[in-house]
């Protein structure tokens, strides 16, 4: 009687992409924020080449995390506005499938921002950020941010101060991810020996798996009473 997990997941991804293609409010907001953030940092941090190489990965990850928070708030608000989350919960579906479907949509929007940021920052900061290892770290880091963000946004969207509450709740939780992502990205763009930074993508992978399992198990308790 239960609808297959994969079918539910794909239906939610498809629905989120279609709604976004029509409204363009989520990705447009995230992109604009990311662009402004990178420009503001570039003017604020008038640094020499060495200092810039040290700071640029921090700028990249702060921008990705805050742009993701903007997107997550909007994405979950869409489910709350007309009681749509309730409508999904009324269907004979696995709550985990709802979580993975929402997570996949949120991740796609966030990774799109990350992929636009990399060439943009390469130009603005005159540092080559378009390497396969940077892409891997951005992929793993953004995935981790989306996993924790999807669960926490589902929690905070039920509160009155949801817009303010999500970053307050989310930033401490994504701190391990953020540290690993910044360390890894800094090592890669500074062209340090692979032995100096190879641990960080592995840390990201392990943290992603741990967060995914924990969030998948917790989601039903968060959205149901």
């Amino acid at each position: 009687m239960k609808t297959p997990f994969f079918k539910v997941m794909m239906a939610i991804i498809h629905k989120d992409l279609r709604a976004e293609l029509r409204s363009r409010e989520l990705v447009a907001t995230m992109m604009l924020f990311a662009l402004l953030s990178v420009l503001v940092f570039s003017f604020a941090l008038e640094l020499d080449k060495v200092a810039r190489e040290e700071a640029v990965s921090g700028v990249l990850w702060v921008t990705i995390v805050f742009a993701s928070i903007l997107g997550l708030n909007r994405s979950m608000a869409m489910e709350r506005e007309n009681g749509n989350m309730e409508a999904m919960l009324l269907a004979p579906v696995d709550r985990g499938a709802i979580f993975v479907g929402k997570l996949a949509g949120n991740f796609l929007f966030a990774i799109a921002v990350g992929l636009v940021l990399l060439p943009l920052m390469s130009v603005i900061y005159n540092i080559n950020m378009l390497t396969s290892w940077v892409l891997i770290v951005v992929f793993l880091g953004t995935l981790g941010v989306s996993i924790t963000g999807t669960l926490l946004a589902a929690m905070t969207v039920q509160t009155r101060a949801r817009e303010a509450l999500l970053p307050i709740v989310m930033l401490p939780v994504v701190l391990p991810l953020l540290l690993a992502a910044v360390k890894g990205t800094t090592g890669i763009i500074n062209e340090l020996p692979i032995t100096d930074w190879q641990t960080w993508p592995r840390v990201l992978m392990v943290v992603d798996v741990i967060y995914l399992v924990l969030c998948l198990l917790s989601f039903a308790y968060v959205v149901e009473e």
Partner: protein
Amino acid sequence: MTDQERPIIEIEALSKAFSYMPAVRKLDLTIQRGEFVALLGPNGSGKSTLLKLICGLNKPTTGQIRIGGWDMPAEAQAVRAQIGMVSHKALLYDNLTARENLAFFGKLYNLADDGRIERILEKVGLSKRAHSVVRTFSRGMLQRLSIARALLHEPHVLLMDEPYTGLDQDAAAVLDDLLSAAYSDGHTILMATHQLERAARLAKRIIILSRGSIVHDSTSKMETIELAARYAEVTGAATAR
């Protein structure tokens, strides 16, 4: 007793409390297949909570709920497939078209795309607006589409929580017709409402809740004025409708 003879909704000693505040108190209720039941009561009497308990959005503090012989919440997935819900909220996505909304919910209920979307849109009179984005719909159209969403998977039980909220006279009359048609099609309808006149006219059984308990349960036909007097008597509330 065969499945068809068995009551579609069986509730025994059901209680629900929020932070120790009781919303439903030791409630017993049986509803037969094909009944149209109006659930009346003042605000805070437990109508919405009872509907949410039946559809599984809330979990009981104590007591038992069986829908079509399936236990809630233990066999929740089987129960969910048998229930359609309409509330004062649309439960629809603003940025999708009417057809896209129904297609999405159809996938959640694992339904085949066998033309049922077109049929149900025809039934609720929205065929011409199938490809219109829902945010352009009036409140009445939204509520019709909401009914289409609730009936899409052909549920045995249709739960309605204040479905007339925000509707003008014409839209409410269209909703009356849709409800009568759903009742004629054999759906069991449990409708929470404040509209005594509509309850008296449409429903075949009237239940009045007060402070989480059933204080009136009758299948005998009542005129609105008679029902209003009874309502005031059992709830202590003044009503003019």
